[in-house]
């Protein structure tokens, strides 16, 4: 049977709502799960969650728009968050930033054309003794130098290729 993307999304959200509870306090974990799985929270997802929790979709939008780790707009497969707070700044985050922009060809706040990387600033990542620090999705990198940037990006690309070929094999 053909399962459409939107049906799949609905099933995913229902499963998460059953897991975390269909009351308001389940909202954050449900949103976080959708964000993790789909890299964004679409209008359809917000509508579906609102229906399940019996609240207005605008309530859901209000929450999504408040938190910087929840996104309505499509993001890249890898979200790079470079810490811009003072200790990392003193350890040279500006040069790291410039090199990432050079290597990805997009400025901060944007996503690469291939949809692989989104480049964002983060406020203090709590790695102040080992800066400059950055997060790539949930993974943390410390003492990043302009020279190391290329290796980190290559690592992401390799992970992605491995993931895609594994996915193909599973569905072959």
């Amino acid at each position: 049977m053909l399962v459409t993307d939107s049906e799949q999304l609905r099933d995913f959200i229902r499963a998460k709502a059953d897991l975390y509870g269909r009351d308001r306090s389940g909202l954050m974990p449900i949103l976080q799960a959708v964000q993790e799985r789909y890299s964004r929270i679409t209008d359809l997802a917000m509508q579906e969650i609102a229906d399940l929790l019996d609240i207005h979709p605008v309530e859901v939008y209000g929450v999504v728009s408040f938190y910087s780790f929840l996104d309505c707009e499509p993001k890249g497969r890898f979200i790079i968050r470079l810490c811009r707070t003072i200790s990392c700044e003193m350890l040279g985050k500006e040069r790291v930033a410039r090199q990432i922009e050079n290597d990805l060809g997009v400025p901060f706040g944007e996503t690469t054309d291939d949809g692989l990387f989104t480049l964002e600033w983060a406020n203090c990542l709590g790695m102040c003794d080992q800066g400059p620090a950055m997060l790539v999705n949930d993974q943390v990198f410390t003492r990043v130098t302009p020279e190391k940037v290329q290796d980190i990006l290559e690592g992401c690309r390799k992970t992605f290729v491995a993931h895609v070929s594994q996915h193909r094999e599973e569905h072959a």
Partner: protein
Amino acid sequence: MISYDDHLMTFTSVDADAGLKAALGKKRAEVLSEVEHSGLKGRGGAGFPTSMKWNLCAAATGAEKFVVCNADEGEPGTFKDRVILADYPDLVFAGMTAAAYAIGAIKGILYLRGEYAYLRKHLEGVLARRREANLLGEKIGGKDGFDFDIEIRMGSGAYVCGEETALIESLEGYRGEPRNRPPFPVDTGFQSRPTTVNNVETLAWVTCILAKGAAWFQSIGTEKSKGLKIFSISGDVETPGVYEFPMGITVAELLEKVGGTGAKAVQIGGASGHCIPASQFDRAIAFEDVPTGGSIIVFGPERDMLAVAENFMEFFAEESCGQCTPCREGNEKLLEGIELLKAGCCSMKYLRELCALGETMQLASKCGLGQSSPNAFLSIVENFKDEILGRTPETV
């Protein structure tokens, strides 16, 4: 990850289970009085007496009570809670369990900031192990009628959620906007139930106090600031990292220990704290002098203090939740003022107006974020006028 075992002597030496066992061997009221006698104050930065929170929560009526551990460590320059959670999670969970026992709570929630998502798996593993060891779950430690478990909830990148009422809003599925107080969380907290919200480090100290006794903790520190404190040290020092020092240590003593002598200023308490110039390095780090949640950022002689102020104000302009006007508009105005100073075209009259605005924000903002966000700006303007006035744009 770097290990700081040799810096954190107490946490390394204390057996978390012994602390919890000691608590469970006492009556609830005895646990409360032990914490009270220790003189422990909140280690997140606000310095509210822990026992007062617990006593109020214990006295509140309600069948369901909650213990929340605030692991939304977002203050710039603070990373001690990350180290404690990674290396000494049992101290924290034992502290939560002891708190639950003392106040009669049935459920605990660890609110972990989204930036620390990589710690979650590790922490879930520790919780599973504690459940197996009957340190969580039903009849904990064989004690009839003491059921308690801990759940981990994630933040999603909002500094303001470190404020306890905003944290509760977030847990309930709302925007992290601080509530009006009163009512306080101790009687009207998570889902309107009595809730005690304690910082990661506070709960770890609770376990140490229960294991080693209130007298030990009480004997360290100053009259108004008892015990030991974990500091997060970064910036221009030889050996950045986390350190355990007694409360009341002077800035100069601390700099000596971390290889930061020769600094021209130290930011104490993170972006929301105060910038202390070298002339005041004899001041004590304690609630009655310079308070801190543990963030110490050291600036060497070459650092541009206006750039420091700019970095902090950019932080607050972005992290203000936007709910109340003094904070939402004030932080933007102060940031604009810094741009003027950078361009060398800020009159003394206007700078005074900005300082007056900062003082208004301290008085009129709804929560601690807006009340403390002008601190860095005001202390840098006060102490480094020579450096920030009359600049020519090229020197920036």
